[in-house]
């Protein structure tokens, strides 16, 4: 008896007892569906976060310096020199975040102000919608110019062209020279609710003389490690200890994210795997019943010349077909469920082919593994005892 024949027979017996087959498969269906849904949820969430981080630029390196006082300090000029010296580094911008209030129709509204140099928008992939970004001259001469985010433009200027207009930040007048492209949906508190100032001006606004945050861009994404090492070496020379500064890259964050979600996926799949195991036991149970019910059939087949291998393969194929069908139904349910849940949670749906393949092959393997024991029982039946069975 060949496999195809067994397979067709197995499909037939599935069809003749639909309810029973469905209940047998239910464990596998739920198991496979939950593997797909859970991995898809984790992957979608990860994708969402990775996209957000990567939109900042994958060659981005952020440096924050806590400092140790005294005369050991790093100035923006030192960082600029470092970029010139090292081929691995492309650009640097100081990064001074100051909370500020923007005057809008006699009302003060909170806004994020970031003091930067003229390279900041390139490092951080900030596009310019209209006007220009801050220039070297703005920074050097401490011009009270600023670039505003799309939310600020919308909120303060209500559709009129903001370029050349004046805004008031903490009581100081700034001339708007550019509007940044929308990056985060133009909502309040997001990256679009920002005002970019020359860092030299920001420094005087807050009376913070020390610049403690820098954003670097690496020249080559593939040499990120070397770029980080170059920065760390330079900082170590100044501070003589690793405790006073912190160098992080977006890729490192993404890598950590990958690791975290990988562990999360494993745990969730493990839980879903328990359901697959229970499903497998269900299949074994039904196959054992089936062997008992069909003892006479086994006897007849043996009397007609079926070898133990013929009988074994018939029952194993039947079990594998049952769980395989359960697997296919589970995949359909899982994909549908993943799309439904992700759209409910407003996330992009990510379903990896890998999770489908793994879920399906695990279900097929479970069918074979749990079908083997009842099948072996059938194959070992003594032909005459089987024939006499009622």
């Amino acid at each position, binding site marked *: 008896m060949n496999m195809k024949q067994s397979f067709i027979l197995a499909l037939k017996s599935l069809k003749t007892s639909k309810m029973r087959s469905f209940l047998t498969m239910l464990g596998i269906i739920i198991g496979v569906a939950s593997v797909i849904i859970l991995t898809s949820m984790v992957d979608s969430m990860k994708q969402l976060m990775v996209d957000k981080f990567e939109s900042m630029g994958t060659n981005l390196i952020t440096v924050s310096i806590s400092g140790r006082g005294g005369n050991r300090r790093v100035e923006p000029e030192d960082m600029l020199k470092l970029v010139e010296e090292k081929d691995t580094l492309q650009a640097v911008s100081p990064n001074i975040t100051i909370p500020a209030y923007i005057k809008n129709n006699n009302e003060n509204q909170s806004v994020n102000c970031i003091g930067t140099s003229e390279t900041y928008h390139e490092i951080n992939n900030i596009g310019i919608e209209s006007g220009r970004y801050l220039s070297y001259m703005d920074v050097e001469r401490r011009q009270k110019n600023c670039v505003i985010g799309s939310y600020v433009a919308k909120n303060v200027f209500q559709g009129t062209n903001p370029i050349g207009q004046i805004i008031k930040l903490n009581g100081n007048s700034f001339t708007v020279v550019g509007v940044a492209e929308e990056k985060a949906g133009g909502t309040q508190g997001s990256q679009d609710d920002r005002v970019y100032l020359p860092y030299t001006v920001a420094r005087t606004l807050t009376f913070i003389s020390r610049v403690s945050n820098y954003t670097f861009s690496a020249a080559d994404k593939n040499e990120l490690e070397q770029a980080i090492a170059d920065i760390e070496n330079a900082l170590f020379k100044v501070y003589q200890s690793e405790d006073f500064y912190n160098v992080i890259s977006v890729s490192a964050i993404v890598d950590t994210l990958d690791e975290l979600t990988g562990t999360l996926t494993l745990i969730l799949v493990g839980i879903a795997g328990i359901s697959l195991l229970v499903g497998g036991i269900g299949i074994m149970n039904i196959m054992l019943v089936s062997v008992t019910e069909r003892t*006479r059939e086994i006897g007849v*087949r*043996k*009397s*007609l*010349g079926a*070898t133990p291998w013929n009988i074994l393969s018939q029952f194993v194929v039947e079990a594998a077909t049952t769980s395989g069908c359960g697997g296919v139904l589970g995949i359909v349910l899982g994909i549908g469920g993943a799309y439904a849940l992700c759209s409910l949670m407003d996330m992009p749906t990510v379903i990896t082919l890998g999770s489908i393949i793994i879920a399906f092959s695990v279900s097929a393997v479970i069918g074979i593994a749990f079908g083997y024991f009842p099948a072996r029982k059938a194959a070992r039946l003594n032909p*005459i005892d089987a024939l006499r069975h009622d």
Partner: protein
Amino acid sequence: MIELRDIYKIYSDGDSEIRALDGVTMTVEQGEFVAIVGQSGSGKSTCMNIIGCLDIPTSGSYHLNGIDVSTMNEIELSHIRNQTLGFIFQQYNLLPKLNLLENVELPLIYRGLSPKEREEKAKIALERVGLLDRAKKMPSQLSGGQQQRVSIARALAGEPPVILADEPTGALDSKTGRDVLDFIKKLNDEGTTIVLITHDMSIAEEAKRIIRIQDGKIISDMPGRRNAL
């Protein structure tokens, strides 16, 4: 053809033992039509199961076609059952989920024939029992006599040299029983060796040779009426 020598089949049941076959020796030549007769519990079914390689004797030797069968393993025995023997059972033993053609194809599948070959041979066998026009019907749609004819077709399909019939007419009324018996006789006329098991003397009389078994022993071995004529 069939050569049983000192066959014992003993079932131990704690202290007591039951001798289903108690030293049976018999030889059946090619082309013979032998009826094995006996009351229920006489050992005739055990004898047939051993001839049919469905059961293994406790001791004694069994040669089929000159080959020692008593030392064969399960796989070798299944090849013997498939190629040398054809079975006809009292309860037909057709598989209810397969149609007639598929039922008749079963032994050919286990023989490893291609789908085309086995369909051809199965159709010839069904044609011989006059049921080719119902090839796609299910066994449950047929009368008892027709089902028995299908099981004969299934036994014939592989063209085995020996056909074993265990009470083939036992579940049929006398008219259809006679038809089935006539068909078996025809098969014998065409050269197939037949071993028929029955408790009914009137059926046994149709055979060329009658062996009577009682308490696991052969008590008589004589020519049948048909041979005498």
